[in-house]
């Protein structure tokens, strides 16, 4: 027993010293943080990159877009991430935060598009929704059904109440929580867009802008919208178990589960590869990643990683990222973006 204790004590000393010496060395792999939406694509590129080059496979953390920028902008040293993934463009405040910590040279790379779909089980009929329908079904306050300028708490219980052509099923929508970037994008592209079509809400925009925003962006909390967490697989499973419910999630999960679930038409557009790629499907958003130019050369492999990500075999129409559900950009946009990435053109701060 004594020996055991002694061995353990010795081992702990050994670990401490070994670790201390190792920690002093520099980093020889790329460190990437950021959006969980870009994560599946970024990881696929990283894996290919690690296998086909002499460099180590990059390490990728899924921290969310906001969390990613926070880490990315925390400093310019090599102990901070080299690349951050984002499911929206960088904000002015984030550029400023970066600049304050010495990160001034940022390269922006747009990688493609991601569609957000509303889908239900194959066992139920396909829904044909307009963005107006979705707003009426999900907003906390809607214009009074009796007409007039009054806004009332959402009275609609079934899809039929919202729009007579829809089935008489209870409104039950499973979607991401407010912390999620997917939810932000959905609110912006569907709810914000639709609410301006109602005269009483539109009138608010000039009189009370704060109230206007709140009405457009607040989702009802009476149980019709269920926050199902960030795990999209879970939503798919729940849709299968309950054919009456509708889910909101990313296109890649629809792509993988086409035998179990079907996407609703939104404004008459099917959520498929083609309609998202040519911009007809209304609920899609661009995906980006941002690179610290100063780290190129300090951390081995960054330029080569950019080349891999922007190569045709990765983000091309037949590339492995399309296989994973990324919607590619048009050819000429890709070419311009790849050239920008190669030249490491930094974003200009007066753009904001």
């Amino acid at each position, binding site marked *: *027993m*004594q020996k*055991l*204790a002694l061995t*353990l*004590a010795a*081992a*702990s000393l*050994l*670990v*401490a010293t*070994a*670790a201390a010496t*190792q*920690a002093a*060395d520099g*980093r020889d*792999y790329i*460190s990437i943080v950021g959006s*969980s939406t870009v*994560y*599946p694509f*970024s*990881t*696929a590129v*990283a*894996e290919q990159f*690690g*296998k086909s080059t002499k460099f*180590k*496979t990059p*390490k*990728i*953390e*899924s921290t969310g877009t906001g969390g990613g920028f926070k880490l990315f902008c925390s400093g310019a040293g090599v*102990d901070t991430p080299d690349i951050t993934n984002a499911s929206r463009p960088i904000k002015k405040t984030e550029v400023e935060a970066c600049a304050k910590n010495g990160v001034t040279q940022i390269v922006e790379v747009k990688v493609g598009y991601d569609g957000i779909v509303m889908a239900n089980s*194959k066992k139920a009929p396909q829904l044909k929704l307009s963005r107006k329908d979705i707003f009426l079904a999900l907003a906390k306050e809607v214009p009074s059904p009796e007409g007039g300028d009054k806004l009332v708490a959402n009275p609609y219980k079934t899809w039929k109440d919202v729009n007579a052509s829809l089935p008489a099923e209870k409104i039950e929508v499973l979607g991401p929580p407010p912390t999620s970037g997917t939810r932000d994008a959905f609110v912006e592209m569907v709810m914000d867009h639709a609410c301006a079509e109602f005269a009483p809400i539109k009138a608010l925009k000039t009189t009370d802008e704060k109230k206007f925003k709140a009405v457009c962006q607040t989702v009802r909390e009476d149980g019709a919208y269920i926050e199902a967490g*960030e*795990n*999209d*697989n879970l939503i798919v499973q729940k849709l299968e178990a309950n054919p009456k419910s509708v889910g909101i999630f*990313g296109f*890649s*999960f629809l*792509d*993988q*589960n*086409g*035998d179990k679930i079907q996407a609703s038409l939104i404004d008459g557009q099917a959520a498929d590869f083609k309609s998202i790629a040519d911009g007809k499907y209304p609920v899609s958003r661009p995906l980006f990643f941002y690179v610290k130019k100063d780290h190129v050369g300090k951390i081995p492999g960054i330029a080569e990683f950019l080349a891999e990500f922007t190569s045709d075999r990765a983000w091309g129409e*037949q590339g*492995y990222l399309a296989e*994973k*559900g990324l919607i590619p950009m048009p050819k000429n946009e890709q070419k311009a973006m790849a050239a920008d990435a190669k030249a490491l053109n930094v974003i200009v701060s007066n753009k904001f």
Partner: protein
Amino acid sequence: MSEKPKISTMDRVNVGLAARYRKERRFKLFGLAAIAASLLFLVLLLGSIVAKGYTAFRQTEILLDIHFDPLVLDVNNLATANYAALVRDGVFALFPQVEGRQDKRILGKLVSTGAAYQLQDMVMNKPELIGPPKPIWVLADDEVDMFVKGHISRDVPESERRVSDQEAAWIDQLVAAGRLALKFNTTFFQAGDSREPELAGIRGAVMGSFFTLVVTLALSFPIGVAAAVYLEEFAPQNRWTDLIEVNINNLAAIPSIVFGLLGLAVFLNFMNLPRSASLVGGLVLTLMTLPTIIIASRASLKSVPPSIREAALGVGASKMQTIAHHVLPLAMPGMMTGAIIGMARALGETAPLLMIGMVAFIVDVPTGFSDPATVLPVQIYLWADSPERAFVERTSAAIMVLLLLLLAMNAAAVFLRNKFERRW
């Protein structure tokens, strides 16, 4: 004197006896029902995990005739040869009737993208393979795997499944020719993480867990035991030691994410240790398990009878000799049990690791304490969130491995206790 019938105590007891027996039976029944309910939940949980996960231990492989052509493979430059072409030629040779670029492209996708790297490894390790064609089993694509295992149903219309009728026909042909079979999934135990389910394995996560636990055990056990010995044997009873004791008990109940935040502030931001390293994970988990170990160690020190100490002191041993030669060895089984249970909890922890960057996609298997690493429960979480269907069974399989490890650790704790425990 007319004798009134006297009601004896016995009679009174007898009257109520049946009711009392009934009550007792009911009481016992409640207990039994509670056990049955918890067993039922356990069986349901384990049953669903095993039912979903057991298929992951076998992987579809396809037998190809690979021609290691000396004209293609230059012995002096094996690293850069076009192995993907070797694989493609192998597949095309099986279906000579398939023509057209598009069809060939789909046909080539029956085989995993990892097959090329598999061949590369084989040739680099054994250059004497170069020569005539040889039959070689290569990994099938994850969608072929799912189809063969029945997770993609044939009955739904072609447009709705990810395996087309044409591919299904090819697969059937391969099965009929004996060129497609389910084999034991060695990749699952030998590879790190991957975005291709057929290439993904738990080795990286297991090694990460191992390094993390080594750091945790090496730090928390000696520190915990030393703290317990001081508090139990040397410390005076005063307000300070009371305060320390209250704090230790308090720390044992703190949610683990708090330790992660502390780790982020102290180890990463202040001490500048590397992010995502198992060393930092181990340090954070040390903080988390220390209270558990201190409390268990103090309890087992307390259970050593005072007579042992008195006898030792009586024959002239010093205080240190008493503790080192008599009290500690007797308390050790209890301390080790506490340590193992603390380690088991540390093995299943994800929340504190989130803050220090160990929830990450890491392909290379870590080889040291400062390499970026992830741990088993994090791997399970990441796979559960992946869109590819083949990750469902791999998630469950990884859970099974984690449960087995936990079972082994808890069994070791029970074994140690039974083997070394002394009763007085």
